[in-house]
């Protein structure tokens, strides 16, 4: 049991460092509170965004926390990959630079797995292969109002893409 845990912990930590660097050019690491007896302690997430000191997740800004938490989630997924992913407004706390980097990363990953992302942000919509529009009709029922194939659209009408 302990051997299994360490193998998983080290795998997720390695991916966490890779992904945190890809998203924020900084350095992140997972640290066990009690390395001798992992089940007797918790898991600390530490990260050093570019140009800053190393700090715990709790002391970061809202956007930095969410980028760090996202990196942790992606590390879990990279360690145990699934055929499809569904994300619901994970880019909410990010400023435009970070939202852009996240959208880039998802675009890159979408060659290996399918991504379905609910988002209100322009950065995501522009990079997607397909955009589904949803609305609520006056009778209170949800209706799918449009399914655009963005790749086709980009070829035909480039100027429509502004937010």
């Amino acid at each position: 049991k302990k051997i299994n845990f360490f193998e998983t912990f080290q795998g997720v930590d390695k991916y966490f460092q890779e992904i945190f660097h890809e998203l924020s050019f900084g350095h992140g690491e997972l640290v066990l509170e009690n390395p001798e007896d992992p089940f007797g302690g918790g898991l600390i997430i530490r990260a050093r965004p570019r140009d800053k000191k190393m700090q715990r997740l709790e002391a970061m800004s809202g956007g930095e926390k969410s980028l760090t938490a996202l990196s942790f989630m992606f590390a879990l997924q990279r360690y145990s990959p699934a055929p499809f992913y569904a994300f619901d407004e994970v880019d909410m706390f990010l400023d435009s630079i970070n939202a852009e980097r996240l959208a880039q990363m998802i675009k890159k990953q979408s060659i290996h797995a399918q991504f379905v992302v609910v988002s209100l942000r322009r950065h995501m919509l522009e990079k997607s292969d397909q955009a589904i529009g949803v609305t609520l009709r006056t009778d209170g029922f949800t209706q799918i109002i449009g399914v655009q194939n963005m790749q086709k659209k980009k070829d035909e009408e480039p100027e429509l893409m502004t937010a």
Partner: protein
Amino acid sequence: LRLKEIEIDNFKSFGKRTLVPFLPGFTTISGPNGSGKSNIIDSILFALGLSSSRTMRAERLPDLINNLSGKKEAQATIKFTDDKEIEIEVTRKIKVKDNGYTSTYYMDGRTCTLTEVHDKLLSYNISPHGYNVVMQGDVTSIISMSLNERRKIIDELA
């Protein structure tokens, strides 16, 4: 394997039978607040039995049935494909009866158990403990959970 299409009928805000088609690659879903975006994600969790009614913002399972249409049942079907020869269809249906309600799973048209659904999904590495479905607010909950709860995520993956 990938999502090919979701068919939602009388589940949450989908009072009319609705088809949501998916292409391979990167798909976004957008629309105004309260229009039903998260309900599409909930329909995946519901049909594949990946979570409890509490995570789908309902007190009890029957609260997932559309409350405007007057119909007493709801269902969601997830169609997977590998774009070659494999097609898998998982359906879950809930019906309210006089003395309670029934919840039934179907795989490729035949009734089956939740364990059969989970075993089939596990063979494609889709599991309730994996973080492949991230609901609205999950990012915040990773930030605010205790250090022990965070470690338990690794335990479950091991």
